[in-house]
């Protein structure tokens, strides 16, 4: 006798928990799936910030959530790129922007044109050929992504106040009809590899066909299940402490996150409308929490307002991200550094996989293995992207950074680096968070210069090559010039045309 999965309970907190609830309710609320959220106490600190890659905008669109509302409610600022400085010794900083993959009119990526140009004396840096990077640098927002007439398009994500965004997403979920209760979990009763029921702090027993653990790194549910041990990625991502604080607002707010390496880790400055969030990660073996708090204003080169808060940082993945009737989403499944805008993308990518492979009946969950494989692939992809910053650093004679270069890479990253170094080509695997041009901008930004290029680029006559490179610069100049500056963009979003509050159903 089979029984459909109808009763779903999310144990979660903060934005990842509420995004999960909103997305499931949106997709399945009308199909007889009932959803309830047990809300755990927030783990967010006042200064916390989410920096989010462009796909978050797509998720909001799916949930029919108005961008202006998001920006207004969360003191949000568009995140058009991430700027990396001091990672590679004396090399210039670089910006990773979010250019859209061009239509496949030719098989030859622009990266190849640039590499050959560089070999023949082209001076202009790779980022000058990225629409996203140049928009970020100019403090402008690439709003024209939907326009098919544009020769190039780029996307943007957001910097959002983490607490405010969590409150907003809770509102969205609740308005859509998700039942919620605030409680903590007093006990998890198992039956073999499954959760039979949860005991809440007020004595209520909760059962469900499917439990979703969106509790963050605490892994309140899945942590109890066999086969879901946490496996650390510290060998590649060596920082184990994180500091958050607030500085004065930057006026006008830059369109990028500023990520600067320092002796024992990195410091990020994430602009919001009312303040600048400062986030740092560092290695506790080299610097104590107190030292970090004291040196923060100097390293960040920004006066700090209010208290800084230090907490543990754990990067890694569960051995299994779905055990029995319990699936982990967000940081309960895997966790990374607050770098490259991945924070919310962790939950987002888990949710996408969960929606694609949503379990249909309670007697067996063969979806678990395919979910786990997909989530693992994307998790390792994001991990590799972050690890590449460390591996490719060129801060010589800083022991922390020297060690980062010496550690053997994950195999997947090593073969990607090898191929890029040999030919400027990016191999893509199953489920990827980042596209080929993201990797190219990362590798070239950190100074990994390919030794040869795709032979087909030599088929292009020199004058056509020069014209193509020139045209691209001109296109970018014209497109960036037509984009609204961040200030103007925000003025439109925040102060005019006040949107309706989140729609229901």
């Amino acid at each position, binding site marked *: 006798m089979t029984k459909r999965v109808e009763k779903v309970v999310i144990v979660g907190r903060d934005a990842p928990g509420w995004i999960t609830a909103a997305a499931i309710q949106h997709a399945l609320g009308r199909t007889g799936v009932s959803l309830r959220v047990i809300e755990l106490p927030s783990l967010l600190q006042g200064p916390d910030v989410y920096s989010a890659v462009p796909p978050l905008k797509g998720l909001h669109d799916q949930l029919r959530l108005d961008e202006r509302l998001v920006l207004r409610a969360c003191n949000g600022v568009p995140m058009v790129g991430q700027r990396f400085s001091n990672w590679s010794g004396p090399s210039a900083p670089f910006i990773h922007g979010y250019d859209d993959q061009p239509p496949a009119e030719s098989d030859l990526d622009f990266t190849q044109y640039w590499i050959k140009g560089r070999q023949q004396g082209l001076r202009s840096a790779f980022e000058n050929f990225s629409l996203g990077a140049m928009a970020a640098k100019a403090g402008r927002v690439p709003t024209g992504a939907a326009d098919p007439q544009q020769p190039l398009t780029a996307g943007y994500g957001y910097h959002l106040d983490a607490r405010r965004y969590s409150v907003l997403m809770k509102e969205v979920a609740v308005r859509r009809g998700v039942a919620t209760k605030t409680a903590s979990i007093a006990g998890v009763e198992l039956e073999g590899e499954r959760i039979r029921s949860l005991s809440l702090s007020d004595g209520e027993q909760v059962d469900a066909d499917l439990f979703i653990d969106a509790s963050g790194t605490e892994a309140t549910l899945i942590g109890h299940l066999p086969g879901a041990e946490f496996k650390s990625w510290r060998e590649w991502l060596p920082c184990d402490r994180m500091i958050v604080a607030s500085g004065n607002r930057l006026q006008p707010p830059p369109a990028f996150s500023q990520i600067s390496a320092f002796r024992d880790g990195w410091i990020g400055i994430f602009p919001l409308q009312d303040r600048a969030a400062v986030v740092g990660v560092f290695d506790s073996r080299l610097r104590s929490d107190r030292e970090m708090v004291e040196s923060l204003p100097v390293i960040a080169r920004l006066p700090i307002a209010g208290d800084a808060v230090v907490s543990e940082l754990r990067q890694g993945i569960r051995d299994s991200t779905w055990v029995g009737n319990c699936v982990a989403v967000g940081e309960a499944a895997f966790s990374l550094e607050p770098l490259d805008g991945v924070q919310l993308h962790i939950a987002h990518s888990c949710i996408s996989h969960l929606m694609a492979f949503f379990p249909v009946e309670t007697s067996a969950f063969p979806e678990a293995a395919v979910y786990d494989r997909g989530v693992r692939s994307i998790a390792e992809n994001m991990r590799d992207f972050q690890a590449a910053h460390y591996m490719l650093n060129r801060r010589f004679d800083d022991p922390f950074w020297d060690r980062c270069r010496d550690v053997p890479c994950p195999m997947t990253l090593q073969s990607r680096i090898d191929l890029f170094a*040999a030919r400027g080509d990016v191999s893509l695997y199953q489920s990827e968070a980042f596209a080929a041009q993201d990797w190219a901008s990362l590798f070239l930004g950190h100074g990994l210069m390919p030794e040869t290029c795709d032979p087909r680029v030599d088929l292009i006559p020199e004058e056509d090559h020069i014209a193509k490179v020139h045209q691209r610069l001109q296109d970018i100049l014209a497109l960036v010039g037509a984009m609204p500056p961040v200030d103007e963009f925000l003025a439109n979003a925040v102060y005019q045309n006040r949107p309706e509050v989140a729609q229901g159903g």
Partner: protein
Amino acid sequence: MTEPLDVVILGGGTAGWMAAAALVSSLPPGRCRLRLIESEEIGTVGVGEATLPQMKNFNRGIGIDEAEMMRATNATFKLGIQFVDWGFKGSRYIHPFGIHGPAAEGSSFRHRWLRALRHGLKSDIQEFSLAIVAAEANRFDFPDDRKTTLKSTFDYAYHFDASLYADYLRRLSESRGVTRTEGKVKTVERSSETGNIDALVMESGERICGDFFIDCSGFRSLLLGNTLGIEWEDWSKWLPCDRAWAVPSERAKDFTPYTRSTAMEAGWRWRIPLQHRTGNGYVFSSSFIGEQEAADALLGELDSAAAAEPRLLKFRAGRRAVNWEANCVALGLASGFLEPLESTSIYLIQMAIMHLVPLFPAKSMDPRLRYEFNRKIDLEYERIRDFLILHYHLGSRDDAEIWRYCRSMTIPESLQRKIMLFRHSGIVEEYKDGLFNPPSWLSVFLGQGLVPENYHPAADVQAQDQLITALEDLRTDIRDHVEEMPGHERFVARYCEAPPVTELPKAEMRL
């Protein structure tokens, strides 16, 4: 500028001339000097008379005019493959080049269809594929470029005479500067230092040196297998067929825009309509039937008079463990063999070439390029392998030894998982590189009788009567579209009619 590389292509069958044509057209002049060695005494196998839609990219890439190529190769159009008697005797389905219906309301078509099926819909999923409905009506037209129209939901490939295609590419390659050398290889010289191949010594005594060798020597795998000793990975426990009889017959009345594959007592039989004749063959396992018996069975099933004596071909399913080793890459049969059940032979040659071009080496033979090439080829082979095994394994035929064996054999874990997921709830995992797309898996799963037990809950969002109406409208729409398409025969005659055949079809082996 990189010093030009001396590239020697050994073998002038389909693989050799495809490589020559593509390399001479895609690589900059001065990058390499191409030389192809073949012997008219060694027959070519003439791989595949049926192709996949990817072929069009290949041809476009080297600047081939479609109608001209089709005239020169007696080509016809192909919208898919019809499988007869595979899942069970009397069954019939088409694996189309195209999708079955659109996604809507956040749910893919198969789940919407499964839901409708449970609520009384009587239509087979095939009725929602324009490619299938057109194929069954023997009609053809080019797909629409605009991505939103019904007429953009299918694609097409060709049936052609592979040896005429090789001839066509030879003329093209030679006109673009490829040197052809007639002769047979006597020995192969290797560097004692690097292990690389240095030269081929010909029976004439000529010593042909090269920096990079492309082994298109067919089953013999003279360079990759014999010289470099790359071992053979045998897949015959999953794909037990090891022989094929091939025979051309006169052009049949039934001028289908699709290949037909009919399951037989010890394998399967192909039928491929060309302009001047029909290609037929029986792929069988010598463990389950005698050669003579198989030949008789084939001849007994022809739907037009045989135009030559049947010819026998022997093979094994499997591949070389790596396809690029040292300074030698193998293409086509020298790299591996998978039976032509899904017309993948030419596809595999094409993909190997398309993967090779961007990674084309310089004299240093950078191993990092080779790793990436081999990784990509591994994926291509394994994905096709699983898909082929599926045809043999899935179904309920128990009327012959081979089908009982295949149903109960242990299949690769990757395939077991796919079958289990589809059975459970219609899950078809998408993957990035390689064949086949979800619509292909869907057509074989369903066509061979595996109906999922559940469907994705998002398919329940749409109101039931709306869903049924939408599906019925779509079915009508497809029929109306097909009504307006010209007949395949007329289309071919107008677009690419081949000059009349003056000589008898060559009684060559084709696969």
